[in-house]
């Protein structure tokens, strides 16, 4: 199968959906003429023009809200936040209008919109640009959240998100944009990955590493070390989607290995892994041979220093150490 970059997989998803549905519009800061701050939308403005690919001023509350209003009328905006960290200046629009309008109108209004952009630490940009808000937004009923780790999942989830009739917040990762992976050829049909379906990225029998986003790749690295140095065969479950959540896949892997280590770039307090932990103890308590353990981002604002930044994140060394406490 062909291999393409994560950013190109996303671009292919946009291009295909722009072709499929004339109401799809890409909007955000520098997405058009600049070709995207991270070159995710490169070439699309040249191909599709100003009506479909729209540069906005640095005005997140304004243009995110504008996209929400337009979606109520049937436009299907795909809004880029240059960093998901900038959610805070558009928070009212993201959680009051996008998440609640359908509910408050008794189902009369509908918000078929995608909000997307990178949400990760590890790039030496300090605390304000390193937020990882998937757990935050998944805590608002009405919203859907996903976080693809591979190019194939990035494309498949993005296409599903654009076709979904509810607001879907897609959390990408600047450190993944340049990674490559196998993605099915468009000639072989539409490549869709449904929201709410996890994926086992590595089969194993001794412990389950449950992760999403870039943490999946770190967990896979850790799994290789665990195998080669400690003889521990770890299974890696990629959640892919946070809400809806593939609870069954989580229960199944725990029932298989009887041990779980959650790898989550969120902070530990009420992060995604907190929710997964409570689901495991409620639904698979009798199958556990050890406490559920977590490897999260260390509980402080993101440090700048490139020397130790990676130590704050869930890295393979920290994952291995945590696994060794229970396996």
């Amino acid at each position, binding site marked *: 199968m062909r291999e393409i970059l994560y950013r190109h997989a996303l671009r292919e998803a946009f291009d295909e959906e722009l072709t499929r549905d004339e109401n799809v519009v890409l909007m955000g800061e520098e997405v058009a003429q600049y070709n995207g701050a991270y070159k995710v939308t490169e070439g699309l403005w040249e191909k599709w023009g100003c009506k479909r690919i729209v540069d906005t*001023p640095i005005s997140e509350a*304004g243009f995110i809200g*504008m996209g929400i*209003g337009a979606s109520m009328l049937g*436009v299907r905006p795909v809004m880029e936040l240059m960093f998901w960290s900038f959610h805070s200046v558009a928070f009212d629009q993201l959680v009051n209008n996008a998440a609640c309008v359908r509910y*408050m109108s008794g189902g009369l209004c509908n918000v078929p919109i995608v909000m997307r952009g990178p949400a990760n630490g590890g790039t030496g940009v300090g605390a304000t640009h390193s937020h990882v808000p998937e757990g935050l937004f998944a805590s608002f009923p009405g919203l859907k959240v996903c976080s693809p780790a591979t190019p194939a999942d990035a494309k498949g989830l993005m296409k599903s998100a654009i076709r979904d009739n*509810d607001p879907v917040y897609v959390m990408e990762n600047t450190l993944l944009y340049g990674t490559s992976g196998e993605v099915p050829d468009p000639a072989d049909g539409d490549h869709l990955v449904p929201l709410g379906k996890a994926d086992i990225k590595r089969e194993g029998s001794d412990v389950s590493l449950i992760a999403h986003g870039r943490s999946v790749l770190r967990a896979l690295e850790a799994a290789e070390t665990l195998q080669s140095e400690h003889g521990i065969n770890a299974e890696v479950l990629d959640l892919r989607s946070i809400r809806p*959540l593939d*609870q069954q896949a989580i229960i199944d892997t725990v029932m298989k290995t009887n041990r779980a280590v959650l790898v989550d770039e969120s902070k530990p307090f009420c992060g995604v892994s907190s929710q997964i932990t409570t689901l495991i103890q409620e639904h698979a308590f009798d199958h556990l041979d050890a406490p559920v353990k977590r490897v999260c981002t260390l509980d402080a604002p993101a440090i700048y220093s490139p020397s130790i930044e990676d130590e704050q994140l869930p890295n393979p060394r920290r994952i291995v150490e945590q696994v060794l406490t229970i396996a």
Partner: protein
Amino acid sequence: MDSPASPLDFSQSKINQNLTAEQKIDLFRDMARIRRFEQTSLKFYNGGKMGGFLHLYIGQESVAVGTISLCGDNDHVITAYRCHGHALAVGMEMNPCMAELYGKATGAAKGKGGSMHLFDPSRNFWGGHGIVAGQTPLGLGLAYGVKYKEQKGCCLCYLGDGAVNQGAFHESLNLAALFELPVVYIIENNGYSMGTSQQRSSAYKDCLAQRAEAYDMDWDLVNGEDVYEVRAKTHIAMERARKESKPTVLEIATYRYYGHSVADANAKKYRTPEEIEKYKTYHDPLRLWRRRLIEEAVFTDVDADNIDKEAKQEAVAAAKFADESPAPTVESIFEDVYWETDNNTEASQVGRHFFND
């Protein structure tokens, strides 16, 4: 707030000259219906029938009725939490509106939105929004949608004078002008952002709408007590939007007789009883419009009384309907959260959407 009487007679504006007697009476009826609806809702709010807030529109009726009377099929309306007047003006019936205030299953939003969140997209009415100025980017988006679909229409986006200092509004003005969107921002200036007067809350030179100049937008001041003037000046702005795809800020001077909400503990402290009485006596839009139509021999005092009586009866009947309606079920809490789960689609079958256990 107080505004000098205009030397112009807006009844002679073309948009008003074309009004038939029946249409003029309809404008009176629409305003009377809003007032009676509000008075009735106040009575039962005080009687403990409703929860939450009740932001009454009494005194401002001419603004919603005058402006919305200009709307056509491709024109859209969105407003803030003081939304009952706009809801009735777009043609929503009293029963679902009152039932929504009561939090009943028969409410416009099935009891999920309440007083601040009335919606009727079938009549191009997009709410009813609770966060001050939070609706102003949404109004922009509705205008964006109209333009994107290449329709000849516009969005009327209402806000209070207290909303003009929110960042979202300024961002919206910039985007409206920058993208040339067909939106008309209507500041309903009732003089008070809750308990804080305009003078104590806003920095401005001559008026609030003048801020539009910073964004190279057209703006105008409107005396809200005169339905003819409201219609004439709003029509100009709407035509600018429809024909030139250009936004406008209108500031319509008006007044609310009650507190910010009924729960406003200081409603009678931050302004004098004399001020309120002056408006009721000399500037009441219903009273003025009624007098005008009698002068024009469009109807008689008796006709007006009958219309008012009918409006009152309709409101009382709506309260009865609401009172007798069933409450929503606990199961319904999970409806209207996601389109996909409500419609039981394939996508909704994958993964868990709700996390109650």
